[in-house]
């Protein structure tokens, strides 16, 4: 197996695991970070597919600006919690 093949297999597994994490994590801030991670992995695939301009845009706009938007919206929606136990001690409300 060539070196590029190994990199691609590892990255595909990582991206699919990150996508599952984005859908199944209880912590929605962590899910937003996982979505940005998927965008970064896809930009690596774009480099492998000889599309450097698309890779640049995906990394800067898709991962950077998109992740920033998701994080700001999470803060606005009251989903900004780093640790679940600490939040439940303070607020006492049910985790959503």
């Amino acid at each position: 197996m060539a070196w590029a093949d190994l990199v691609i297999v590892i990255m595909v597994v990582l991206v699919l695991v990150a996508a599952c994490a984005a859908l199944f994590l209880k912590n929605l801030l962590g899910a937003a970070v996982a979505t940005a991670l998927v965008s970064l992995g896809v930009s690596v695939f774009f480099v492998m597919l000889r599309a450097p301009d698309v890779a640049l845009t995906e990394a800067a706009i898709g991962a950077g600006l998109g992740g920033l938007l998701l994080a700001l919206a999470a803060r606005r929606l009251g989903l900004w919690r780093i640790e679940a136990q600490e939040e439940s001690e303070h607020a006492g409300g049910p985790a959503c």
Partner: protein
Amino acid sequence: MSEFALLTLLIGALGLVALGIGGLVLSRNLFRVVLALALAEAGANLLLVLVGFRQSAWGAIAPIIESGRDAASLTPSMVDPIPQALVLTAIVIGVGVQALALSLAIRAYGAYGTLDMNALRARMETDIDSAAGTQPARCQHAPAGGRPLPPISAGARRADTPGTPA
């Protein structure tokens, strides 16, 4: 790039699209719906660029023609640039769509105080019923029957109704 690597990339792209659509349909939290939309969009972009991939015996090159090189000899091993240009646009539009969806979710959270889809639907139904002055729907298959149509101005109604002196 070998056939195996391309097949792996195809599986990755289709898996991303499948996970995104599944999350879009099945998740109840509005914020997670936006996340699933971003996943499906990344998978679709990867699929489009993968369709445009071409290579000759000595590999693939990026679609950039340097000055002084013969374009005709370069073209057979050059990657198709048109899907790349489309995907470049689609990435930016995708972030715009994401921002719009997030702002709508923030507005819905501000108005109803929850992000759960079922609770949101129930409160919206209650709101519509109280605004229209009708009884709430008994079940899903028998929606509120007396819900009025959008208001018609008095002049138009009088002209339409037969037998009414104008």
